[in-house]
């Protein structure tokens, strides 16, 4: 697994900010690189699944600890 290129800290932000901030961040990330997202919005689990399906980016890792969801997304 290669290193994280960019981290998006969306903790404490309500829907749709975790997705919006991630969509902004991936614009500046080269294809194939990894973006880490930290979010506390419980809707983000379904939202990131839908967003990656629609945009072609891939969730390569997904964990939850103490109410913080962590997604590692591979830029398409």
């Amino acid at each position, binding site marked *: 697994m290669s290193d994280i290129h960019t981290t998006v800290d969306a903790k*404490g*932000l*309500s*829907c*749709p*900010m975790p*997705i*919006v*901030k*991630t*969509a*902004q961040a991936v*614009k500046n990330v080269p294809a194939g690189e990894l973006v880490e997202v930290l979010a506390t919005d419980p809707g983000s689990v379904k939202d990131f699944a*839908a*967003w990656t399906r*629609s*945009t072609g980016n891939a969730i390569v890792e997904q964990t939850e600890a103490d109410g913080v969801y962590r997604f590692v997304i591979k830029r398409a």
Partner: protein
Amino acid sequence: MDEKPLAIVLFSGTDDKLNAAAVMASGAAALGRRVHIFLQYWALDAFRADRIEDDHGLAPEAGAAGKAAVDALRAEGQAPWYETLAMAKELGGVEIMACSLSMDVLRITEDDLHELVDGTEGVTAFYLAADDAQLLFI
């Protein structure tokens, strides 16, 4: 991306409905969907450059408890609707147009409007722009 565009007729001028529209628009923009927003009546009034940051109140059904919940979210630093819309525009593909009839009714000129608004159009131009789009009325 070839996602279906979203068209929003934004009529309401209270902060809760403006925020709902901003959330729908920014979510669509994040998916790579084009978004076309048509501002009518009280929504258009809320986009006046000198009033956009004012408290525009909430829909009547909010009541005191609803207002307290919204105020608490604001105190936690939730972005106001116009900042959410600005972020959606940064993502690209989001166009915000003023309804020319509403401009006449409210005696608003383009100089009165916030820079988030891209221009003025009539209902015919709106329908052409929204031709293949999913349509929301808020």
